[in-house]
């Protein structure tokens, strides 16, 4: 089942183009990480998907038009924008009462079960909580809602490493069941490396790369070349080259693994390195558009 389908999605703020004709398709059961520099259009894309902003082009989320059917769509979609969006004056018990009141798919007992394992007390107010606790509260709400799509926009911004680790662990172990779909944006690329099934690089409102993690493993290889083989490696048309401790690391798209193995140590690049390679090229305008 297709959860999100976008064709020619476009959004312009004044003179700046936030989304420049994005085509996107996300199927059920995927965890998509959207990665891009500041101002690349990540949040705009999520806002369009959530019905928070109007757009040009075609967009269907769970078969609905998010801009005209937001209230209905929100029965099946949850989102956490960042930790500061819970109303600060609310008590935990009030948050639970309210969500139980308005959300037909919310299981209060389940949320209370999650919260019982945390330091969040029913009488505490959101304003009295640390960012980490507020995130736990929001996560407990989301986990207790039987939604089809979860959207996370920088969900772990400002959290310490323990809470961040816990957040993704809960997400994978307690929430994700291969029928649900998750889309997330983050700057902490290395943290979602082992979480996502697909990645999408976006820059200046355009998609630079959209593929599954398996595809990345198949397509991209990184070689830490022996100094005497660097020149030979460069002849194989690497898409990026960087220096680490005086040694050249070259990144290849669809290269022959055996051929590369003769030149140095071969490995699959991290998402962060791949991202830097592609964005670096884009900045230098050498071959970014070719991706």
């Amino acid at each position, binding site marked *: 089942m297709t959860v999100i389908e976008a064709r020619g999605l476009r959004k312009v703020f004044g003179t700046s183009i936030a989304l420049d004709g994005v085509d996107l398709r996300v199927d059920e059961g995927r965890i998509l990480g959207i990665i891009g520099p500041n101002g690349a259009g990540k949040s705009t894309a999520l*806002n369009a998907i*959530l*019905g*928070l*902003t*109007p757009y040009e082009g075609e967009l269907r989320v769970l078969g609905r038009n998010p801009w005209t059917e*937001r*209230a*209905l*769509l*929100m*029965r099946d*979609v*949850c*989102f*956490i*924008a960042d930790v*500061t*969006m*819970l*109303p*600060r*004056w*609310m008590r935990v018990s*009030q948050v639970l*009462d*309210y*969500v139980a*009141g*308005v*959300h*037909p*798919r919310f299981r209060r007992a389940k949320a209370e079960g999650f919260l019982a394992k945390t330091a969040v007390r029913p009488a505490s107010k959101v304003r009295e909580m640390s960012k980490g606790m507020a995130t736990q509260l929001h996560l407990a709400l989301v986990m207790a809602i*039987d939604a089809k799509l979860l959207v996370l926009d920088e969900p772990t911004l400002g959290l310490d490493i323990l809470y961040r680790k816990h957040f993704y662990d809960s997400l994978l172990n307690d929430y994700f069941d291969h029928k649900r779909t998750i889309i997330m944006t983050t700057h902490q690329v290395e943290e979602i490396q082992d979480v996502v099934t697909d990645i999408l690089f976006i820059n200046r409102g355009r998609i630079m790369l959209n593929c599954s993690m398996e595809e990345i493993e198949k397509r991209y290889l990184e070689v830490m070349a022996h100094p005497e083989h660097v020149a030979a490696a460069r002849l194989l048309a690497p898409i990026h080259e960087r220096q680490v401790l005086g040694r050249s690391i070259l990144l290849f798209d669809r290269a022959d693994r055996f051929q590369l193995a003769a030149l140095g140590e071969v490995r699959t690049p991290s998402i962060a390195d791949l991202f830097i390679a592609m964005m670096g090229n884009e900045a230098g305008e050498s071959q970014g558009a070719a991706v």
Partner: protein
Amino acid sequence: MNTQSNVEPESPSSLNKPPAASASRAMYWSIRRELWENRSICFAPLAVAGVVLLGFSFSAIQLPQRRRAVLMLDEVHQRVAIQMPYDIAAAMIILAAFIVGVIYCLDALHGERRDRSVLFWKSMPVSDLTAVLSKASIPMLIMPPLIFVVIIATHLIMLLLSTVILLMSGLNAPTIWPQIRFLPPPLVLVYGLTVIVLWHAPIYAWLLLVSGWARRATFLWALLPVAIGIFERVAFGSSHFGSFVRYRLIGWFDEGFIPPTVSGAHIELMQLTPGKFLSTPGLWIGLAFAAGFLAAAVRLRRYRGPI
């Protein structure tokens, strides 16, 4: 029944309810959450009632002497003198409720954008229409019955207090109890509160619109009509806009009532003019503007994100 929501057999029973039921549920909880957030809606009228009662009990110390003097007066002035504190109490509570309503509306759509909680509210299956109507219903539907109860309770406590004091001072009961009929009839109060809230509906709607539209300084934007009035006065020496604002604030009295012949006297049932009020163009034009402002506020809430 709604067939569309029956597509999924495993969906919870509440999903199979007709949309009207889930919409009224969303409305109910949206109003409840407004009351949780803005406790001054209940507390401010109660606090004013408390202050009025406190003042009344201080003045009640001299009540016996005053009452003896009042009983010398003719029937009409007797009534006016006895009724005065009750009317003042009601007026104070109504004024407090109006001020609370104004402050509430100015923040209703601004505060949620300022603290980004609008993102949380919008992540729930509650439409912008429901959200704005729930906010508009606080001053227009929730507060009038609330202050009706507060005023009646205040009046009864005042009556009880003065009865006890007068009895203790040796005035005999028959001269005291007729004052019950000096209480404003509840029906006049219900009528008065309805007239006021219908007349003020465009004011509340305008304030909601301002709070959904202004990025900052909602209070200054809300005073724009007053600024226009001052400008007109200075620039053209006329005061059409000023009298328009004045009419919108207090015009309900002239349109809804026959003013009493004796200054300060009570409004009696005979002095209500619902026919005149309902045929006043000012009422319907005002309500049309209120509807327009609310529609614009709904649209703004849809388009505007956090500030």
